[in-house]
């Protein structure tokens, strides 16, 4: 775990658009259909898992994204969190949920690459090769969407006005990064 070997490690600016990979941060996938699950997550992370589709909840430390009615993604806001803190948090979740048969906790830190987008034209950029309708998404802070960008599966998290985090699988990240850079040149 956390043996990060990022494929991108770059930060680019194209006019108004800023693109940067944010790492290392811990990402954990949670799955459960049990009622007790929400309470346990609330106790450990001080955030309740969102039950409304395409939304997220969060605090200073972590964000909890809705992925499906029984699946969530937790990721840290803090790039400087120590390895020990990250492992402690994962162990706590694992002991309280996986070990007690309340659901599944999987560390996906190395599975997802997180790219941060900032700028007025980020939605124009993504819309070049994305079938998703961003009208509602960009108005609502904390919105989450799973969709395709240039035929690659992504998770989008609206962080703020004209700022979003995009999660892409590590094996597709380089391809998507090249496409993003190529498209951003013409914005």
């Amino acid at each position, binding site marked *: 775990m956390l043996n990060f070997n990022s494929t991108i490690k770059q930060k680019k600016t194209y006019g108004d658009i800023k693109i940067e990979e944010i790492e290392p941060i811990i990402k954990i996938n949670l799955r459960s259909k049990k009622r007790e699950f929400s309470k346990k997550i609330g106790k450990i992370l001080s955030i309740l898992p969102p039950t409304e*589709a395409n939304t997220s909840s969060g605090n200073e430390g972590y964000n909890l994204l809705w*992925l499906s*009615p029984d*699946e969530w993604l937790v990721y840290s806001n803090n790039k400087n969190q120590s390895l020990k803190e990250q492992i402690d948090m994962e162990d706590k979740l694992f002991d309280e949920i996986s070990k007690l048969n309340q659901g599944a906790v999987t560390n996906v830190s190395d599975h997802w690459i997180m790219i941060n987008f900032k700028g007025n034209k980020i939605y124009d950029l993504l819309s070049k090769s994305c*079938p*998703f309708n961003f009208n509602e998404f960009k108005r609502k802070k904390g919105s989450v969407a*799973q*969709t*395709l960008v240039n035929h690659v599966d992504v998770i989008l998290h609206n962080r703020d006005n004209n700022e979003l985090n995009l999660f892409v699988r590590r094996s597709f990240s380089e391809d998507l990064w090249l496409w993003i850079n190529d498209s951003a040149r013409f914005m």
Partner: protein
Amino acid sequence: MFIINCPYCGERDQSEFSCGGEAHIERPKQPTELSDDQWAEYLFMRKNIKGIQFERWNHAHGCRKWFNVVRDTSNDKIHAIYKMGERPPLK
């Protein structure tokens, strides 16, 4: 191309979904007692009608959940969408 209203995520483009074929096909309770023809009938034979068809769809690039769609195959008009396990709204 058409829009599908995922019962979990809302309206999304068809390219995010994959079709799982005809819905409401029951697995035989005693497969060992079937003849080869009966087994092949269950396993391979699908209606593929022109008109209203009950289908299973999967939001493959979204929430990854399965659900049922009542679709007119002649014009792609969707008449109803309902979750797995629910009764079909149309007959």
